[in-house]
């Protein structure tokens, strides 16, 4: 049997130090980590439980923005009155994620760090080739079942989709990740697979997510998260969009637009091209639909996931138009 040690961290520093040791991993809600340990993907020698640390679960919303502690539960953040009013896309992304039971357990820090749902990644006993798990071993997904895989940001080494909803909303609104004193923009926190798909985040051993910070903006206040999937609930996105909108005083010209895509890319995907194309334009269905096609510029499919290339722009367009209607 694989033994591992379990340590209940008493301070953030102690947690960071303990987790810096080889084979050690931070344990928050455990909804990703325990699952991966059962699949044989995660094989920690030591678990450092951070859920008893004090003060890391606060949700603070001021005029400048929101600061959400790494240990805040998904469910609490989704239901927080100020998050709902100031950052509706963040609340909506969270309540459409996972299930109520998981949202009650899972933390914001752990949520950002969740791993791909690539079935080959999750089944080491049957599929030994996986560059994300075992650098250089190859990729079992390419040429296999790819319905859920990414069409954006892929590389020859890995086409795994980043499945999280929250991070998609965060990247749309220029959030930053707090690693103690170090601040990393969310967009830079998530790495493209390139030739090193095993390295997913800009976080170093000995670092820990302590909070995320989302700056306030008019677009964030007028925002939404639209998630499309075959099953109405408890499924990862086939394609999703986090969108925020700020109009000029005329009520129809777009001053600022924020667009990010989920369910289609190897990392939370900011669609700057759509934003730029519509900036200064009138919010008209035709124009919005045409510009939304830019969301999947450069997309590459692997057969069964081709539908994502058609679906994603439609999701973006719908989300923008919905915000436009809700004046």
């Amino acid at each position: 049997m694989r033994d591992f040690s379990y340590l209940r961290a008493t301070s953030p520093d102690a947690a960071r130090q303990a987790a810096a040791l080889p084979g050690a991993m931070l344990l928050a809600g455990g909804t990703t980590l325990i699952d991966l340990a059962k699949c044989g993907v995660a094989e920690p020698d030591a678990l450092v439980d951070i859920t008893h640390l004090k003060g890391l679960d606060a949700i603070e919303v001021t005029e400048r923005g929101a600061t959400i502690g790494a240990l805040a539960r998904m469910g609490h953040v989704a239901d927080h009155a100020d998050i709902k009013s100031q950052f509706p896309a963040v609340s909506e992304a969270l309540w459409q994620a996972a299930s109520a039971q998981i949202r009650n357990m899972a933390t914001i820090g752990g949520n950002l760090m969740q791993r791909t749902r690539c079935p080959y990644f999750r089944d080491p006993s049957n599929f030994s080739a996986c560059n994300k798990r075992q650098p250089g071993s190859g990729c079992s997904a390419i040429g296999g079942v790819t319905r859920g895989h990414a069409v954006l940001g892929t590389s020859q080494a890995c086409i795994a989709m980043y499945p999280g909803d929250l991070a998609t909303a965060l990247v749309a609104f220029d959030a930053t990740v707090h690693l103690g004193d170090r601040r990393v923009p969310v967009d830079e926190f998530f790495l493209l697979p390139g030739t090193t798909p095993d390295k997913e985040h800009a976080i170093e051993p000995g670092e820990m997510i302590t909070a995320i910070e989302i700056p306030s903006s008019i677009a964030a206040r007028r925002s939404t998260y639209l998630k499309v999937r075959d099953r109405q609930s408890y499924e990862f996105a086939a394609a999703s969009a986090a969108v925020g909108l700020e109009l000029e005083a005329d009520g129809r010209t777009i001053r600022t637009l924020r667009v990010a895509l989920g369910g289609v890319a190897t990392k939370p995907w900011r669609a700057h091209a759509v934003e730029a194309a519509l900036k200064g334009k009138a919010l008209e269905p035709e124009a919005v639909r045409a510009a939304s096609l830019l969301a999947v510029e450069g997309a590459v499919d692997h057969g069964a996931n081709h539908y994502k290339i058609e679906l994603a722009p439609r999701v973006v367009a719908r989300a923008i138009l919905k915000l436009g209607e809700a004046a």
Partner: protein
Amino acid sequence: MTVHARHGSTRHGDASDGASMEAVGGRLSRVDGPAKITGAARYAVEQQLEGLAYAALVESTIASGKVRAIDTTRAEAAPGVLKVLTPDTIISLRTASDWFGTPPPDKPYCPLARDITFSGQHVAAVIAETFEQAVAAAALVEVGYDETPAIVDLSDGKAGDGIPIDAMTKEWGDAAAAFAAAPVRICAAYNTPREYQAPMEPHGLIARWEGDHLTVWEPSQWLDGMARTYAEWFEVPFENVRLISPYIGGGFGSKALALSHGAVAASAAKMLGRPVRLVMTRPQTFTGYGGRAATRQTVTIGAGHDGVIQSIVHRGVNETSIDGMWVEPLGSVTSIMYATPNFSSKQNVVRVNSVVPGAMRAPGENPSAFGIESAIDELAYEVGIDPLEIRLRNYAEQDPHAKKAWSTRQLREAFATGAERFGWARRSPEPRSMRDGNHLIGWGVAAGTYPVRRAYGEAVVRILADGSVEVESSSIDMGQGTYTILAQTAAETVGVSAEDVVVKLGDSRFPRAGVTGGSRLAGVMTGAVHKAATSALDQLVGLAISDPRSPFNTLQANTLTVANGRITAPRGDGPDVSIAELLRRVGRDQIEATGDTMPANSSAEDRYRNYTTIAMSLPHTEGDYSRHSWCAHFVEVRVDEDFGTVRVSRVVSALDSGRLYNPKLAESQWKGGIIMGIGQALLEEGILDRRHGRIVNNNLADYLVPTNADIPDIETISVGIPDLHSSVLGGKGVGELAIVGIAPAIANAVFHATGKRVRDLPITLEKLI
């Protein structure tokens, strides 16, 4: 001779007959509910046994080939490991008979494979002191293979046309000629994927040997059949095997047979001299036994411009495994739903490298209905006739295949009642003509049917000293309500309150029952309990009348009334005593009666065969009648035009299951079938990696079944009438009926909404985008 009046004896009507809650026909809630909700119900593998050891399976990672070598060194050295079983080290068993009781070939049986015919086959097992140790050591077993090319599925170039199953051929008239001559012809192919039962409780067992006696705690839809298999494997007398299965967390057809993992656990227990527990992981439940076979059908219909069918030609194919045989009868609904003068249906099975498929809720009827009920919808649009109207125009007044009268067929009533409640008359006929914002709205209809499978059962009913009643039977309750309806049956028959009835099920030491499958159990067991309870009541009343110590002895009555646990003279002019009081006065501590529904002259061998095989099930067309349950489903879908997502927004189903023993439970089963059908239509599919012949979505995060959010309000309406040709008390099958026809009703509604005909299940968004 004694005659007695019986409380409630005239209540042989339908659900609407106003029966009291506790009588047969009453809406009594599940009597096992509180135990399940509070956690008091102890499931099979939750038994706490002294010295329990734990087993974990090692499965093949290739789909075809041979095991070259198994290196167990590292596993054996792992902490807590007691034994590593491989094909070379596991004890040899004998091959057991199949479920028809066909004598098996006289050869050894090894539940661990050397010849690999599918990915996920059991090749080794590790037994350890703890579950965690067993699982960890199982990962250390190294299996070397010589791999050969696999036939992955029906579309594999190597699959071929398969094996014709002549027994499935049904023909009358000249179907080909009539089709060629028909003015309107449609022809289309319909496919269903591999689907899985996905019960909440995974398969598993605890096996314990005491000398040559084996006790198995295992969720089971068929204690006596499984006990027979274990007995044959281990060459011990049938009586030496005891199966215990008081509660079952869902079966849907998958828990009726003893399977290879059971043989592994029982072998390990025997080899170690310790009880062994083995529970499948969720991924193993996708390959450890078979789900519904993937199917392909072609349906061609020749008709007049009036939509009247002149010919149906149907060809079907289902997958089976390389060395097992599973026939999913694809022509079963095709051949009886509509009247046609000319008909031809044939079926092949194709061997592929998969686990042998198995029974899953309405095997045969379910995919069969997807074919014919989609095809007739296509015909309706082709000739421009309302899909409901075309079904009525082709209504089969008798069984077109057996050429016998229906015992009862309330399908016309189902169409009428369902249409009325759904508001079908307001449907706008053109596809894409109903819309709400981004949603295209579609209305679809389809019919379903399931045959009445009949067999015999046996039960003991005891009237105990305190006046309560005890029922025992080796039948089972996997959530469908056996505990409850048998309590109702005994309560009504004896004349006590259902609260005063204790029903004991799920132990093969109890009086015997056949398989809980094919929706037969309620009809079989209410009959047996009714008979046993009647004879217990006869004894009670007999004692009351004739025993000199009875207060009724001097009455000179030839009939007494037993109701609410009290015995009275019919006109209320004599004593009024409780059952308990009577038993006390006459000095009896209980009355016991066994009842069975077997033919009177049945031999011991007949009984054994009846309870341990399905060979004695009565054909549904036996005698003068053809017996089936029927239903009509009306479904509304909303399809997001941009996204291709389908949501079912309304279901109204009218169903004929004959008399309902408990309408509340019947509705719950019907709704369960409808929900499962929604999953089948929109979500469920085993997704195969064709390079490896392996299902990759083998877990409940990736194999999608509906959530509550996917399910709208479902209205079910009973249109049945008692059918005494089908069962003693007039009921027909309930459990499987309602899933039949849901998938085509949804596909038809999707066509109405979008103008796109999806003939490949499930209807996922990329098919509509």
